[in-house]
């Protein structure tokens, strides 16, 4: 079976090259606001992933019926609908997590990564590819959220997976790892400025890795200047 090379490209773009968190820098608001612990990051990441897949699939499914003049309001409607549904479902089935993520869930609507993908990719491609793009972009975003959450939680309160039971049920209480003990928490890491600083280091780290890879590769003539693009096909 031959895998469509486009899928491979999509995975590479979503997870690394055009990562919504590290390269497109879309959705910074939830990214910085909720990543104080890994569990919060995971909860919001999964919610975003779900909304992204659903909205990409729907936008792609209706792409032939939407006149281009009114596409943006329609995309916004669709995204807002999915976010509201996710919010209701989380309220019903993961009540405790809903309590701790509460005000950040509606922020998913304002996550530009979602409307960005709808506009740039899903509105032009078939459902399968669009959903896969949603999955990969969502996973890329989730990964950044988790890494940032882990850094801030370790620095800030010396633990990992604190509160995992909120997301996964009572058995997950044991997942909590006390890495070292802090008498008082390291505030900077927990508050938003810490998120900005950690984020800066993550982006710098990615750029270092990218330039290492570029150096290691045999010299190829670069034809175009590399730019950050939301729409990587253009």
């Amino acid at each position, binding site marked *: 079976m031959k895998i469509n090379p486009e899928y491979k490209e999509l995975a590479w773009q979503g997870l690394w090259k055009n990562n919504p968190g590290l390269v497109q820098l879309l959705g910074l608001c939830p990214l910085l606001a909720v990543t104080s612990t890994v569990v919060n990051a995971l909860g919001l990441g999964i919610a975003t992933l779900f909304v992204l897949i659903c909205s990409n699939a729907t936008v792609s499914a209706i792409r032939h019926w939407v006149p281009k003049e009114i596409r943006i309001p329609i995309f916004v409607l669709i995204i807002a*609908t999915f976010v509201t*549904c996710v919010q*209701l479902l989380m309220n019903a089935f993961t009540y405790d997590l809903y309590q701790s993520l509460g005000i950040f869930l509606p922020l998913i609507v304002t996550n530009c990564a979602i409307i960005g993908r709808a506009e740039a990719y899903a509105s032009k491609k078939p459902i399968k590819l669009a959903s896969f793009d949603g999955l990969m972009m969502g996973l890329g975003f989730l990964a950044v959220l988790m890494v940032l959450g882990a850094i801030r939680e370790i620095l800030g309160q010396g633990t990992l997976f604190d509160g995992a039971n909120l997301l996964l049920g009572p058995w997950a209480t044991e997942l909590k790892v006390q890495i070292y003990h802090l008498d008082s928490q390291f505030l900077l890491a927990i508050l938003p400025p810490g998120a900005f600083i950690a984020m800066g280091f993550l982006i710098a780290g990615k750029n270092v890795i990218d330039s290492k890879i570029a150096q290691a590769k045999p010299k190829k003539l670069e034809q175009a200047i590399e730019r950050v693009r939301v729409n990587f096909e253009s």
Partner: protein
Amino acid sequence: MSELTPAISKNSKILGLFAVACTAAVALVQLLTEDRIELQAQQQLIKQLNQVIKTSNHDNEMFRDCILSPANNNTDLLIDVIYRARLNKVPTAAAIKTVAPDGYSGNIELLIAINIDGSVSGVRTLLHKETPGLGDKIELRKSDWIETFAGKKVLDDNDNRWAVIKDGGMFDQFTGATITPRAVVKTVRKTIDYFQANQEVIFNTASNCGAEL
């Protein structure tokens, strides 16, 4: 008629159609989850009430035996709901949901349970926006400070032990955060005073919030 009119009317129809479809989808999900959300909120409430009033201390359904925002002549004290605990129909304690308005970052919602003899049965923080790492030690998840209220009593009107240690009282403050515990202590104290002065009203008013949950 301008040449744009057909396009405008077509687009607005499509937009309207999508709005209807999206609203219908949300309404459907809401309908499906409604009962469960209500149940979750109710269970959460029962759990909280059982934390502040021991199950051996009551045999009624406290969350149904309650009064909403009762009259109160202390304008400083905002009382939201009072849940009554009874054992064999005899009042044993009351859990009062109230707000400490003077936290470091705004309101702190508290559930304060007081035994019939005036001693504190338990206190829990329901909602707050205090600084993570400093003021949030009023959460049981972060610190057991809130447990220090249990069993304490207001001896008389001049009982100045009801303050943080820094102000000459008996409650610990947190390193770097005095305003938060000060606000909580003050509100608990005021709630006890209210309870002592109004026991009659608190336990004899007919329940009027059963329909809410």
